[in-house]
């Protein structure tokens, strides 16, 4: 078994891992290794050939693969060590990594710090309790995207999409452009799950109907999908009897949510936040195990890649500080509380001397206008008026949050105090 000793190992070469490795190197980390299970860097961005990536970061509308390439080129230029086609099988609490590939066999890597950037996976038909038969033609949106954009094959001709998150919307347009007829997008929630720009550009522009408060309850067809049953749902999200109807199709595309892939983190004993599905993080995106950091969708599911890259950089800066033996603040964390109309906030806890800290959060319910506010104890440290708030759009702000008291982040209705 080959043994390696490193300062920093980044697990996952998608947007979070790429940004983390680059930033760490830039800040002076020396022995950095980037591990990627696929045969190329870039992660899921490689199959995202639509545009809209990098608007915040580069002020440009790039495709996913273009966005990734900017980072990949930089990784090459900076001569960062990369192992492709290499699967991490285990990480331990003392930051040992077991990974394997065809050429080297099993690797036992001892690292001083780790950044977890494994991304997320998609929820499946059984997980969202779709009943009926189990024929060919039921695929997650990511799998359909891979088949169409990477492998060069169409998995159907007439599609129904469940889920109006960005992935579902993007695939509605993509499949239409590829000549599939998209029968409709169905969304169990009363509000759309994706960004407004995607609703307009992916559905409205192509005349694809969106059915809110409606879900797919059953799949029909024994060999290939022949139809699905859709039904309206009540407030409790249960199908309403009598509203069922069959929609003919040969492909059911599921865009029903993403789950951070934290199996490795859990096995190492990293403490998790049930609200985000990711590790509990501090201002440096450090997990409950000192020296183990998390970034990107493994930490919390983001909607913009720009934020994913940013989170990678935050974790990298934290890791470099950790390697330099500069633990900020004191040993006891202050909690970050999700206040009025906030479903979660990352980071979930802060050191006393956290300094300038970037927060990421989602609102619970849509709101036209509200004040995004942050308090340490009773003291307001940040306030900004925000418009057209909706759960699909992640909010972010930066504030100096140093102090001794707990933090609260809230979206306060105008004129009302906390």
């Amino acid at each position, binding site marked *: *078994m080959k043994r390696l000793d490193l300062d920093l190992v980044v697990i996952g070469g998608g947007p979070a891992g790429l940004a983390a490795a680059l930033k760490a190197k830039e800040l002076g980390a020396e022995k950095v290794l980037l591990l990627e*299970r696929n045969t190329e860097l870039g992660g899921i961005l490689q199959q995202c050939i639509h545009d809209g990536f990098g608007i915040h970061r580069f002020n440009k509308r790039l495709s996913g693969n273009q966005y990734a390439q900017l980072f990949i080129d930089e990784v090459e230029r900076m001569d960062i060590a990369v192992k492709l*086609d290499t*699967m991490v*099988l285990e990480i331990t609490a003392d930051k040992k990594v*077991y990974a*394997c*590939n*065809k*050429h*080297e*066999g*099993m690797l*036992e890597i001892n690292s001083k710090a780790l950044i977890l950037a494994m991304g997320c*996976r*998609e929820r*499946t*038909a*059984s*997980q969202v*309790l779709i*009943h*009926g*038969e*189990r*024929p*060919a*033609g039921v695929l*997650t949106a*990511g*799998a359909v995207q*891979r*088949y*169409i954009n*990477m*492998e*060069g*094959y*169409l*998995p*159907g*001709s007439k599609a129904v999409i469940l889920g109006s998150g960005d992935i579902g919307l993007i695939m509605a347009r993509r499949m239409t452009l*590829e*000549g599939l007829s998209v029968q409709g997008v169905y969304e169990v929630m009363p509000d759309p799950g994706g960004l407004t720009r995607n609703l307009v550009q992916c559905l409205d522009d192509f005349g694809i109907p969106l059915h809110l408060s409606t879900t797919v309850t*059953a799949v029909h067809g*024994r*060999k*290939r999908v022949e139809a699905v049953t859709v039904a309206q749902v009540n407030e409790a999200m249960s199908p309403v009897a009598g509203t069922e109807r069959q929609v003919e199709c*040969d492909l059911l595309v599921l865009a029903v949510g993403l789950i951070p892939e934290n*199996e490795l983190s*859990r096995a190492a004993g990293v403490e998790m936040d049930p609200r985000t599905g990711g590790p509990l993080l501090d201002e440096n995106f450090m997990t409950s195990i000192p020296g183990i950091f998390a970034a990107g969708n493994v930490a919390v599911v983001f909607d913009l890649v720009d934020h994913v890259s940013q989170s990678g950089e935050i974790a990298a800066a934290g890791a470099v500080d950790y390697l330099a033996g500069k633990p900020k603040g004191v040993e006891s964390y202050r909690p970050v509380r999700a206040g009025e109309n906030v479903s979660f906030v990352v980071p979930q806890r802060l050191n006393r001397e956290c300094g300038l800290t970037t927060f990421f959060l989602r609102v619970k319910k849509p709101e036209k206008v509200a004040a995004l506010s942050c308090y340490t104890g009773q003291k307001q440290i940040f306030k900004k008026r925000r418009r057209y708030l909706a759960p699909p759009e992640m909010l972010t702000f930066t504030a100096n949050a140093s102090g001794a008291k707990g933090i609260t982040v809230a979206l306060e209705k105008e004129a009302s105090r906390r």
Partner: protein
Amino acid sequence: MKKIKNTLQKAFPEIELSLQLDGRGILTLAGECTDWQQVVAVGHRAAKLPGVKNVVNELRVPGLAVPEKDYGPLRSRGLKRGVVADVDLLIIGAGISGCAVARELAKYRLDILVVEMTDDVATGATKANNGNIHPGQAEKPGTLKARLNVEGNRLYSRWAKELDFTLQRCGAMGFITSTLLWPALLHGYRRAVKNGVDGVQLVGGRKAVALEPGLERCGLAPQVKGAMWLPSMGLVEPYQVTVALAENAADNGVRFWFNCTVADILTEKGIVTGAVTTEGIIRARTIINCAGVHADEISAMAGDRCFTIHPRKGVIAILDKAQKPKFDRLCEHITLKTVKQSLQKSHTKGGGMCYTPEKNILMGPSALEIPDKEDLSTSAEELAYAMGRGDETIDYSKIIRIFAGNRPADYSEDFIIEMSPVTGGFINVSAIQSPGLAAAPAIAKRVEQIVVEAAAESGAPLEKNPRWNPIRRRKPEFRHLSRREQDALIQRDPRYGRIICRCETVTEGEILEAIRSPVPPASVDAIKRRTRAGMGRCQGGFCQPRVLELLAKERGERWTEVTLKGEGSNILLRPNRPGAGKRGAR
């Protein structure tokens, strides 16, 4: 006959029944019922009457179409193709029974062919059960089921050794927390003793807690008053057992034809001469019917209409491995509620909670009588039943897969394993429902005896196959090796260094070995059953394209030809760019 009619008419006055009873005690029922559950209820009631050996149920429900396979076109297709094989022994169906029988009889000098209508072994009831190797305590004493279950359970240890599949003798325990329920425990114990169950014991609370540490962990320990301990309970992956049997049979010369449906049985002067299949006519001296839910149709084709299969659907849910089983053994908390439930449901009440050898919690199966043999749909109600019979704390969000199987039940609710008294050379191995998996080794032995005796009687006793080798070795399973062993394996064969299925840690080497095995898998689901690729929490979301690629490459197929589970279930319809669509390549 009159008595039978009176009793039935009295029990179901609203149905106009017409009955026929033959000399063998086969009762044929006809008439119109109000719903399917009643059709089944009449059949069950009739089968229990004295003088009735089994029931052919032709009762119908007006307005309810019971789908029946149209064998006509399949038969003409086969006849047109003419004779394509001439064998000693034709086995119909490659489930656990068909493969067990094939493997057992391969020890004789016989030309054996197994035909299977689907694309792989273990695609029917065999793959969709809880993998329990039951001790045999639950069966009615005196039945064939009870005898073969206990005997089969015992033989499993040898099977596991010879065929190298995973068998975990986890043991099972039914425990009580109220002394009022001692009679229920005692009743179960007496039945187990009567059936000859190995090692069964009644134990007190303290011993029960010592045997099952989980009782302590979940805080029930102080309340446990006693338990029935069944050390012989075992767990297997049923498809793994079947693949092992099939591979060993193939190593010993048995041939397997997949996608081959039997459309008719040919007889001359009351003796079988062969079968018409979709591949053509297969001449055979002996035919063994292991056709699962379709066994009654096959038996009728052979001129022996002596039972009806009424499919009983079971829905199963598999949970994420992250959800750990509460108990180390298979445990059932016997309460007033469970006792009542088992009294109400006369046949199977389905299974509760258990786990698989790979430590996924398995909930179910449920039990629902349905008219359509090929209806494998699931519903919210059936899932709720499957989930509700276990631990109430189980959370639906931990479900990674829901599926169903149909038990091939007949109305006597016992196995039918016999040389047909009407058609010479035709052997029924039918109505093999639970505990068919546990009984499989004993079923195979019994069929062996029938075949050997028939051969001896015909004056041509069977000769042993001198080259028969009962040993089959499994291929390396990367996930079960230590890091050091994994490293050594990759150094020896680099294909084991590429992980294809992340969730279950399945390597390219394992998938390629499976594709090149003696009974090669031809579809993505067939690969899944052999290697576990796609069986984990992402359900193939990431690995399906890679598995598809390997299948296409190894089999020299176009990507669009690769199926999920056999003919007609192609995953990809057409290429969308030039260069794609070549055989074996993108």
